[in-house]
C-alpha cells in the first residue's frame, strides 16, 4: 500500500483514527496472546504426558491450529462488498470489481494462514454433485424479502444454472469434463488472473471470465500483521441480483459463515432484502452480525442523514423483535481508498473530497465539545466521530472484538478445558508408576468396576434419549396445539366473513402469530433439553469422579472432572417458512368461491394447514431432534471413552510387570517426577488462562 500524503485535501486528516488510548490490550490481542500461550503449554504438555496420551495432545494442537476467524461480507448486489474487502485487507486493487455485478464466486482471503503447498491462489471448480445440489436448493430469501412472484424463483434459478452450464460446456468443449471437480493453483496472483476465474457478467471480453461460470470458490493467501488472529475474509456474491444464481451461492455458504458483515448502501439503507438477510442469519442462530453502511459519501446531507439512517435501522430492528444492539458502522470504502491514495485518479471533480469536507463541517457544527463518542458500532460513535470517517478502523475494531469474544474465546476455553482434563489423567498415571505399593485399592473388585462403567454408559445413553424424547414430545404437542388454535380461530373468521358476504380479500390469517407460537415451542424445547442434558453431563462427570474414588487408594490423587459442553441445537428453517398460507389470498379471491358455498374453502384451508403441520412435525422430528440427540451422545461418548482409557491404564498398572514396563519407557524416577511437576504447572497455567469475556456484548 503506497501512502502518498503529499497533496491531501484539508479534510483528509479526518479519515485517520485518532491516536490509540493505550490503556488495555484489545480483546483481539488478548485472544491472540491466549492462543500463543495455549500453543506453548500444549508443546510442553506433549512432552510430559504418558506416551498413550501424546496422540490426544496432538489432536488438541490441531484444534488450536484450525482456529480461524471466518468473516463474511454479504449484502445486496453492488452494495460495495468487494471495495470493502479490499479496504479491510488494505490492498485496494486486489479484488477486481465492476460497475455491473459480475461475480458468482465466493472469494476467500486467508490472512495469516499457512498456504497450502506454497500456493497463494487456489481456484476450485464445481463438481457435478454440487451443481445438482444448487439446482435443487430450497431457499426462501425471495419469500422473506417479500419479492413479487417469489414462488417462481426456483424455476428461474434452475433455468439460469442450466444456461450457465450449457454456455460453459459449449465454450470449454472437452475440457469441461476435465475441469469439473478439479482446481487450479498458483504460487502468485494478480487482478487479471483473478478476473479470469471470478468475473462473470460482461460479454465484452471472453478471456476475462474464462473459467468464471465453472469456479465455485477462490482462495487467496496473504500475510498482514494488522490481524491478530488468523482470519478469513469472504467476499460473497450479491443477493437480490436478477441473476439469482448469485443469491443461491451466497445462501449456500451462510451456515457456518462465522461473523457476518452485512454491507448496506447508505443511499438506500435497509430494504426488505437486507432485513431478509438479517432474519436468515438469526434463524441460523448466527448472532455475530455487524452492519456496515457504505457509501456515506453519496449522501446529500451526510451528518443528518446518518443520524436519520441510524434511528431508522434501529427502529426497524426493534419493531421486528431483533436485537437492537447489533453494531452499525457508517463509512465509505471510497474514502478509505482515498486515504491510501490521496487524491484519487478516478475522482476528477473532487466529489469524494468535497463530500468528506461537507460531513466534517456539518458534524463539527452539530456536536458539543463534551460529547463522547461511545463504543465502536454504537449510535454515539456513528453520529459524533470526527476521526476515521471512512469507518474502516472502527469496522476492523468491531470485527476483531466480536470475533475474539464470540468465536475465539469459546473455542480456546474448550481446548483449555480438555487440556486440563488430560493433565489430570496423566498425572494420576505417572504418580502410580512411582508408587512402590500397588496404586489401586487392595479391595478393588475389577469385575464390579467394569459393570459399573458399563451401566453408566448405558444409563447415560438411555437418559439422553429419554430427555430428548420428553422434550421433543412436549414441543410437538405445543406445535400441533398452535396449529389447532390457528385453524379453529381462522376458520371461524373465514366462516363469519363468508356468512357476512364480505370481500374474501379482507380475510388475512394471522400467520405471524402462528409463527411466534411455533418459535416459542421450539425455544422451550431448546431450553429444557439443554438444561436437562447439562444436568446429565454434570451427573456423569460426578459419577466418573466417584469411580476414580473407588479405584485410587489415596485421597490426594483425586481430582475434579469438568463435564463436557452441551451443543446448542440449530433453529429449523421450517419455522421461518409460511409459503402455504401466503397463497391463501389468491385461491380464495375467486368470486365463485362464495357461490359454491364457503364450506369447500374452509375445508381446503384446514387441509393445507394440516399438511403444513405434518411437514413441520416430521422435519422437526427427523432432522432437528435427531441431530441434537446425536450431538449430545457424541460428546458424552468422547468424554467417557477418554476416561475409560485412563482407568484401563490405571488397572493395567496394577500388574507389576506392566508398571515396570511403563517406568522403563518413561525413564528414571527423577524424570517421572519432572513430568508430574510439569503437568501440575501446566494445569495451573491452563486454569488461569486469560481470555476475552465472551459474555460481554
Amino acid at each position, binding site marked *: 500500500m503506497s501512502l502518498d500524503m503529499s497533496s491531501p485535501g484539508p479534510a483528509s486528516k479526518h479519515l485517520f483514527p485518532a491516536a490509540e488510548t493505550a490503556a488495555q490490550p484489545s480483546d483481539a490481542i488478548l485472544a491472540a496472546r491466549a492462543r500463543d500461550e495455549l500453543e506453548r503449554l500444549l508443546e510442553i504438555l506433549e512432552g510430559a504426558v504418558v506416551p498413550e496420551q501424546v496422540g490426544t495432545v496432538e489432536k488438541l494442537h490441531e484444534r488450536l491450529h484450525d482456529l480461524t476467524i471466518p468473516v463474511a461480507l454479504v449484502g445486496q448486489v*453492488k452494495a460495495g462488498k468487494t471495495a470493502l474487502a479490499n479496504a479491510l485487507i488494505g490492498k485496494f486493487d486486489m479484488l477486481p470489481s465492476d460497475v455491473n455485478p459480475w461475480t458468482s464466486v465466493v472469494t476467500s482471503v486467508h490472512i495469516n494462514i499457512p498456504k497450502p503447498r506454497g500456493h497463494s491462489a487456489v481456484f476450485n471448480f464445481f463438481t457435478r454433485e454440487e451443481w445438482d445440489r444448487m439446482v435443487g436448493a430450497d431457499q426462501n430469501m*425471495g419469500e422473506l424479502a417479500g*419479492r413479487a412472484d417469489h414462488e417462481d424463483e426456483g424455476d428461474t434459478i434452475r433455468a439460469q444454472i442450466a444456461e450457465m452450464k450449457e454456455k460453459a460446456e459449449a465454450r470449454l468443449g472437452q475440457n469441461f469434463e476435465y475441469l469439473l471437480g478439479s482446481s487450479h493453483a498458483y504460487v502468485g496472483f494478480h487482478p487479471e488472473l483473478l478476473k479470469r476465474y471470478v468475473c462473470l457478467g460482461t460479454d465484452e471480453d471472453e478471456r476475462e471470465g474464462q473459467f468464471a461460470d465453472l469456479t465455485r470458490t477462490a482462495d487467496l493467501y496473504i500475510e498482514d500483521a494488522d490481524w491478530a488472529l488468523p482470519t478469513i475474509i469472504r467476499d460473497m456474491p450479491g443477493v437480490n441480483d436478477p441473476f439469482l444464481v448469485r443469491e443461491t451461492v451466497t445462501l449456500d455458504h451462510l451456515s457456518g459463515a462465522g461473523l457476518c458483515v452485512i454491507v448496506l448502501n447508505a443511499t*438506500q439503507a435497509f*430494504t*426488505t432484502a437486507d432485513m431478509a438477510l438479517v432474519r436468515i442469519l438469526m434463524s441460523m442462530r448466527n448472532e455475530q452480525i455487524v452492519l456496515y453502511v457504505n457509501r456515506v459519501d453519496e449522501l446529500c446531507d451526510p451528518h443528518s442523514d446518518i443520524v436519520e439512517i441510524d434511528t431508522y435501522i434501529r427502529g*426497524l430492528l426493534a419493531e421486528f423483535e431483533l436485537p437492537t444492539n447489533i453494531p452499525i458502522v457508517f463509512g465509505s470504502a471510497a474514502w478509505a481508498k482515498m486515504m491510501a491514495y490521496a487524491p484519487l485518479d478516478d475522482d476528477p471533480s473532487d466529489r469524494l473530497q468535497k463530500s468528506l469536507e461537507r460531513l466534517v463541517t456539518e458534524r463539527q457544527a452539530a456536536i458539543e465539545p463534551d460529547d463522547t463518542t461511545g463504543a465502536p458500532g454504537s449510535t454515539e460513535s456513528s453520529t459524533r466521530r470526527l476521526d476515521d470517517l471512512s469507518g474502516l478502523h472502527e469496522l476492523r475494531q468491531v470485527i476483531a472484538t466480536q470475533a475474539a469474544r464470540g468465536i475465539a474465546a469459546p473455542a480456546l476455553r474448550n481446548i483449555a478445558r480438555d487440556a486440563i482434563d488430560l493433565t489430570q489423567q496423566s498425572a494420576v498415571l505417572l504418580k502410580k508408576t512411582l508408587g512402590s505399593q500397588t496404586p489401586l485399592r487392595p479391595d478393588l473388585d475389577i469385575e464390579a468396576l467394569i459393570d459399573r462403567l458399563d451401566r453408566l454408559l448405558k444409563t447415560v445413553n438411555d437418559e439422553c434419549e429419554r430427555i430428548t424424547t420428553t422434550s421433543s414430545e412436549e414441543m410437538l404437542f405445543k406445535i400441533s396445539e398452535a396449529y389447532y388454535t390457528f385453524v379453529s380461530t381462522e376458520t371461524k373468521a373465514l366462516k363469519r366473513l363468508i356468512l357476512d358476504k364480505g370481500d374474501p380479500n379482507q380475510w388475512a390469517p394471522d400467520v405471524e402469530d402462528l409463527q411466534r407460537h411455533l418459535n416459542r415451542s421450539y425455544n422451550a424445547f431448546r431450553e429444557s433439553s439443554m438444561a436437562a442434558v447439562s444436568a446429565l453431563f454434570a451427573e456423569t462427570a460426578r459419577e466418573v469422579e466417584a469411580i476414580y474414588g473407588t479405584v485410587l487408594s489415596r485421597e490426594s490423587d483425586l481430582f475434579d472432572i469438568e463435564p463436557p459442553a452441551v451443543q446448542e441445537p440449530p433453529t429449523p428453517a421450517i419455522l421461518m417458512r409460511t409459503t402455504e398460507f401466503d397463497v391463501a389470498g389468491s385461491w380464495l379471491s375467486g*368470486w365463485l368461491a362464495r357461490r359454491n358455498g364457503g364450506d369447500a374453502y374452509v375445508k381446503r384451508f384446514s387441509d393445507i394447514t394440516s399438511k403444513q403441520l405434518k411437514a413441520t412435525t416430521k422435519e422437526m422430528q427427523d432432522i432437528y431432534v435427531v441431530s441434537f440427540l446425536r450431538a449430545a451422545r457424541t460428546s458424552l461418548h468422547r468424554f467417557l471413552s477418554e476416561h475409560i482409557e485412563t482407568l484401563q491404564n490405571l488397572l493395567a498398572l496394577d500388574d507389576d510387570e506392566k508398571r515396570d514396563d511403563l517406568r522403563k519407557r518413561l525413564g528414571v524416577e527423577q524424570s517421572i517426577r519432572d513430568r508430574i511437576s510439569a503437568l501440575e504447572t501446566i494445569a495451573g497455567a491452563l486454569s488461569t488462562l486469560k481470555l476475552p469475556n465472551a459474555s460481554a456484548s
Partner: protein
Amino acid sequence: MAKISDDARGQLAAWKAQHPVVALMGEFSAGKSTLLNALMGADLLPTRATATRMPAVWLTAGPALQVYGLRYDGTLTQLAEDDLAHGALEDYLVLRIIDPSDALSDYDILDTPGISDIRLQDDVIQTLAGHVDLVIWCSNATQFWRQSEKAMWRALPRPLRDRSVLAVTGSDRLSKRDLTRVLRRGHKEAKGLFSAVLSIAALDAVTATDDDRTSAWETSGISDLIAHLDENLTALRHADKRPIAEDVLEPPIREDHAEIPDNTANADNHIYLDLRKNLQEITEISKDFRLSTLLKQLIATVDEHTELSDDDRNLVMQVLSLDDVTGSDAAKYLRQLDGELSDFSNGPWCQLA
C-alpha cells in the same frame, strides 16, 4: 394492516378516467421524488435517505393549489398545504394535489411509495398500477435493476409495461464509461419489459434556474423523457377507445411472453373476448351508474352463445344477475366480475366451450 376498500379503488378509477396518468415507480430512495421535483420545477416533496412513510401523491392540473387525502376506506378529506411537509400522513393511501403548474397540462403525475420498504403494504403498488397509463420506473445507477425491481415489474400488466420507460437515475454519479456499461446492461435487461431505457441526472435539472432550464433539461435527460411521454400518450389517446379495462383485466404475465398462449388467437376463447368487450362498455358507462341495464345486455350475450351447455350458462347467468345495483357498489361489482371473467377464461368452462 389497512385494507384498500372498494370505495377507495372506485375513487382511483374515477380519477384515472379524467386524465392520462404517468406514474413514478421504483425502489425507495431511487430518485422518484427528485425526478418529480425536477419535472414540476419546484421542491414539492421532501427527498429523504430512508424510506419515507409518505403515501402516493397524485398531481393533477387545476386553477389553484389544493390538497386532499384519500384514506384506505375511501373517505376523502381536504388538507392544509402545510400538512405535506409536517402532517401525519401514514393513514392516507393517496394524497391528491391540484396544482396550477404547466407540467400537468397534458397528464397527471402519480408519485408512488418506493418498493422494498419494509413497512410498505404489499398490495399498494399493484393497486395503483391498475390506475395508470404509463410508468417511469426509476432505478438507481449505482445499484441498477435488482431482482426485487424485476419481480415487481413483471407482475404488472403487459400493456402498461409496453408503454413504460426504465429510467437510470443518478446517472451523474457514474463516469461516462461506467454509465455506458450500465446502460448496455439496461438495454439487455429491459428487452420485452420496457419501451425505452433513458438515463436521468435529475439533480442538475432541479438546481437549474428558469433561464437555463432548457439546457439543463437537455443534459439531464429530462427532455428526452418528456418527449417519450408525449409520444406514447399521444398514441394512447389516438387509440379508438381508452383501454382502461384492459389494463385491469390483463391477467398477470408470469414468465416469458413467448410461452404464454395468446388469448386472441385462440378461437375457443371468443366467449371470453365477447364478455370483455361488454365489460369494457360497462366500465365506460358505469360512471353514470346505469349498471343494471348493461348487465342485462351482457346476460343476453351469454344467453345467445349456443356452444355453452345449459349448466354452464346457468352458472354464468347466476353470477351475472346482480340485483339492486346502486352507485356506491358499482366498483365492487365490477371488480368481482373482473375476477370472475379471469377465472372463466382460465377455467374448464372456457375449454369445454
